[in-house]
């Protein structure tokens, strides 16, 4: 953002976007920082609440009179210990990891080839194929899960991780393809043409030239696909029955809630631990993440 050095009448320049340095501080406090603080507080409070509830001993959870609800007075890891050693939580984590990694790799491989074909091989009908990929991205899981459940039962992979690894690509492949098409489009044609003149095959162009140049795109698509599969719920809820095959979101919701007694501490610890992998991944790759999110929407 560059600021103009021209002299501007301060009365006219009042609260302009590119001229915010001319604003007086008190006004900026009320107009910008106060609403922003409220936004950030509301958006983050549930996570804070999740974290401190996970650390509170059971006695403190519902006793607001003797303990301040906003701070654990004697923090404990008993809920985490219960979760890790007395429930199937570790195997849910492992399942989610296997399913997310498996479906991400599968989808990325298929999406790279498809995006390259649509964007650069330009076979007859590639434009329509691109449009079809976009439309496929818009098909929501909540209208597919019933027929998919019927199919998965017929294939004999009901209640296995394979059921999820095969169905998650239905929303991952369209997304990754769409994203990678945008990346491939930004790579100059001349590079490919030089390689063609030098006698490279299409496969060599893809693996030696296009892929190294689109590493940021691959990272974006990869972490985004991983997050989407980590967070998926309705397929995992429908296709998995046995406790040891469940993923984290399904396991926490269906196994930790028993009857009327909610073990809030364990529930929150489960939610916290289950969010940690994607949040860590996100914190390392914020920019890739934002670019993949905006890239998917921007054409």
């Amino acid at each position: 953002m560059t600021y103009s050095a021209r002299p501007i009448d301060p009365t006219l320049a009042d609260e302009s976007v590119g001229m915010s340095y001319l604003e007086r501080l008190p006004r900026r406090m009320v107009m910008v920082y106060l609403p922003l603080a409220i936004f950030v507080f509301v958006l983050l409070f549930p996570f804070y609440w999740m974290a401190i509830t996970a650390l509170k001993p059971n006695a403190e959870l519902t006793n607001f009179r003797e303990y301040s609800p906003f701070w654990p007075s004697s923090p404990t890891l008993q809920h985490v210990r219960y979760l890790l050693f007395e429930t199937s939580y570790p195997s849910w984590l492992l399942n989610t990891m296997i399913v997310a990694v498996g479906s991400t790799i599968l989808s990325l491989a298929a999406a790279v080839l498809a995006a390259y074909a649509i964007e650069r091989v330009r076979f007859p009908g590639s434009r329509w194929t691109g449009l079809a990929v976009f439309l496929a991205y818009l098909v929501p899981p909540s209208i597919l899960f019933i027929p998919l459940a019927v199919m998965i039962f017929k294939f004999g992979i009901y209640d296995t991780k394979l059921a999820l690894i095969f169905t998650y690509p239905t929303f991952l492949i369209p997304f990754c393809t769409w994203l990678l098409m945008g990346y491939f489009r930004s790579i100059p044609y001349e590079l490919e043409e030089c390689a063609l003149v030098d006698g490279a095959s299409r496969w060599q162009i893809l693996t030696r030239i296009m892929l190294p140049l689109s590493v940021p795109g691959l990272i974006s698509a990869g972490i985004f696909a991983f997050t989407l599969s980590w967070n998926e719920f309705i397929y995992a809820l429908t296709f998995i029955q046995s406790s040891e095959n469940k993923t984290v979101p399904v396991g926490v919701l269906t196994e930790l809630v028993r009857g009327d007694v909610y073990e809030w501490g364990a529930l929150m610890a489960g939610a916290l631990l289950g969010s940690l992998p994607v949040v860590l991944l996100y914190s390392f790759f914020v920019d890739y993440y934002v670019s993949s999110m905006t890239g998917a929407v921007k054409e």
Partner: protein
Amino acid sequence: MAGAALTRTDASTMPVREPLLQRRGFLGLLFMLPAAAFLLIFLTYPLGLGVWLGFTDTRVGRPGVFIGLENYQLLWEDSLFWLAVFNTILYTVAASILKFALGLWLALLLNEHLLFKALIRAVVLLPWVVPTVLSAIAFWWIYDAQFSVISWSLMKIGLIQSPINFLGDTTNARITVILTNVWRGIPFVAITLLAGLQTISPSLHEAATLDGATSWQRFRFITLPVLSPLIAVVMTFSVLFTFTDFQLIYVLTRGGPLNATHLMATLSFQRAIPGGQLGEGAAIAVAMVPFLLGAILFSYFGLQRRRWQQGGKD
């Protein structure tokens, strides 16, 4: 954009690439094969199968027979189905409007010159990154009828006398799930609109300010028109995902109290999986399609307009 298009047409007419043209169809087919096979088997076929199931009386463990429009007839007379349709529309419209207004506001705030801008932008996206089911579980505890921290704080300040029954009362439950959905959706709207805002050159605002435009006029005649194609697309996505939402409702209320928060997706799940009526569940899912098609057409025209605008600019 136009530059890329130019290169592309240049490239396809270049004699160097001529010999490849014969193999192009075959190559394209080969490269498309994995993705196409996957999507045809696990996306296109289930879509068709879903429509077919809607015309049958399939149950769990028993293949059904064709019964024509009977499922749809039953649904037509089913007051619960119509309640779900009403709830879904209410949920989608209310949540989308709020998400758009608050998301745009947050985007405008984030577009200001701020201290710790990158950090704020990063944490704001968290509700969208964390698995919805897990954050919904945290909300479930926050909305607890007895030990809600919101009720406690409000009682401490003296605004209310007794705890709010967030999820037990029909009106409260509707408002609560809508606001929770808004909480989850704001970051997506805000961050994508922020990307659009950052493309607006400050000199436009400076020029308008010199001409005496007020801040509202600058928003209305500069920011909004430049942003509108992006808004169309973002809101289509938002409407689409809100309309087909399942996770939030399933965790918070399971459709209750008195089915006041049952959406079409949750009703479809309830009838098909625990209820075992796969045919009827599929019929409800199919009934969602006309609404989705409307949203997709809206998106398509939004995109078209965007291309046209870009073409017009160059």
